[in-house]
């Protein structure tokens, strides 16, 4: 057994550090920085059935220790992904989690079926919680029953591990997570962004063309940690934590709280090697203490 390795459902990851969807492109912009295959895995930008141009500018703005984004799920579409991006990633030995979203169960199924035809996809992550497009699924994400249905539908058409990404805006997020577990999810990913807003008071105008945007970054971490703790106490499948991870310390905070792995999002922007730094830091941490990552999981509970 390796020191850093973890298992998520049937899937073994060489370490518990992935990159978060939408914060790492398709993993192909990092050649100048490091070998992305060294990560536990990457989550792709959210893939839809058809390509999407995304929202008009402004799409991003900064807030205290965080940022808002309203990208609007701009993406190349699942077809172009399979054709242009996946082969390169597969070739390089990158563990690829395909983050997908749709506004109907039928489309979730269709995207999954397209991915079924490829090798090199390690898991599908269902984004039922994107706050930035009206049809983007946040309504799925807030409702336990609907979330369970999406999960069950995808589950029934694929052998790939299915991860479901939670919306922190669900009134009862634990119920949503449990519904997904029951519907056959292999892991819960938590959390997606929370909708926020910002106004430029000098110009008396909203900073984002979409009005609201998803709130991410270090500021979000305490909320994400609480939710991860809650979910990890309520389900028996692994929880993959996201929200403001930028240092080894941050990753440990989530692991100790019960997460089996973490995803690094916004931190990639200031430092393209952020996720790699966390892998190295965890390795040093575990070597110094002669422990495995697995033994740390949930140890603060």
């Amino acid at each position: 057994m390796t020191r850093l390795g973890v298992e998520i459902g049937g899937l073994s990851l060489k370490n518990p550090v992935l990159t978060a969807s939408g914060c790492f492109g398709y993993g192909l912009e990092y050649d100048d920085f490091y070998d992305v295959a060294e990560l536990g895995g990457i989550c792709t930008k959210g893939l839809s059935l058809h390509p999407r141009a995304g929202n008009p500018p402004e799409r991003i703005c900064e807030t205290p220790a965080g940022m808002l984004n309203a990208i609007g799920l701009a993406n190349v579409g699942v077809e172009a992904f399979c054709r242009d991006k996946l082969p390169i990633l597969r070739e390089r030995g990158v563990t690829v989690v395909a983050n997908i979203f749709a506004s109907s169960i039928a489309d979730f199924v269709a995207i999954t079926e397209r991915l079924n035809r490829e090798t090199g996809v390690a898991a599908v992550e269902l984004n039922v919680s994107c706050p930035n497009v009206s049809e983007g699924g946040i309504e799925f994400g807030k409702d336990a029953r609907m979330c369970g249905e999406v999960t069950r539908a995808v589950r029934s058409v694929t052998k790939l591990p299915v991860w479901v990404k939670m919306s922190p805006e669900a009134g009862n997020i634990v119920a949503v997570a449990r519904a997904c577990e029951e519907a056959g999810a292999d892991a819960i990913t938590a959390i997606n962004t929370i909708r926020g807003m910002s106004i430029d008071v000098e110009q008396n105008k909203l900073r984002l063309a979409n009005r609201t945007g998803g709130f991410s970054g270090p500021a979000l971490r305490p909320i994400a940690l609480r939710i991860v703790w809650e979910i990890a106490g309520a389900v028996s499948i692994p929880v993959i934590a996201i929200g403001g991870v930028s240092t080894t310390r941050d990753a440990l905070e989530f692991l100790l709280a019960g997460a089996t792995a973490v995803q690094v999002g916004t931190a990639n922007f200031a430092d393209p090697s952020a996720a790699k730094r966390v892998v190295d830091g965890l390795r040093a941490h575990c070597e110094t203490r002669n422990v495995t990552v697995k033994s740390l999981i949930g140890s603060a509970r």
Partner: protein
Amino acid sequence: MSTRVLAKRRLVTLALLRRESIGGLYHVLTFEDPDGSAAQPGQFTMVRGAEWGDAPLLPRPMSYLTAGHAPSILIKVIGEGTLRMGRAEPGEPFTLLGPLGEPWRAPTPGRRVVLVAGGVGVAPLVFLARAIVEAGGPKPIAIYGGRSARDLPLDDDLAELTELHTTTEDGSRGARGRVTDILGDLLGPDREVFTCGPDRMMAKVAELCALRDVPCEVSLETPMACGYGVCLGCPVPTHDGAYLYACTQGPCVDARRVDWSRGDHAPKKGAHLPRSQT
């Protein structure tokens, strides 16, 4: 001068070598880069104080003013990030991610270069002018405008490197008015324009060039989170109804690609969207 082979991007922590306060809200920050930066004119770097902690969170995009072992940037203090840059002391560490983006394309042999600068947009144009002059090219023409004489940082560099025309809205330096008031007279079939400045200025410059069929290259300014193509936060509307991403497909692009009437480059509209809610 600049070739199409772009240097590898690196994230480096560099000590501030010196900060020159050059009047008004402007400062030139020069860093100490033992390895040297191979940035080309028009490229930019994402700059952040290594000791800023969690806020401000994101690095700030800044055009290179010079590259090499003492890369420098020109900053205008407008918010929290540039405020901190504007009071940094020598020795303070900064992270610089760069060089990023598409540089200015190489000037077309046989055409005289006209640089049109507004405010801090002057930085990548000074870099370009220096490269042209050092490569032995014909002295560029430059038009440099601002609200008043105080808003023309690095005008002396430009004066040295180019045949410089200045405009100020209050008439405190050069011609009274805007750069676009005198640009028309300087355009011609043997000319080509490189411009960087406020959106509205660039849109107008692009329009004048299009009318006279003069090639025009603009350097786009949009908010950026990553600067290297992964966040998709920096779209600029194009004529096909789609977007180009300023950080990787720009910042320097042919002005004809940009749809100046859409998005952030159009008059601010965010606040005036229809009122339906939630």
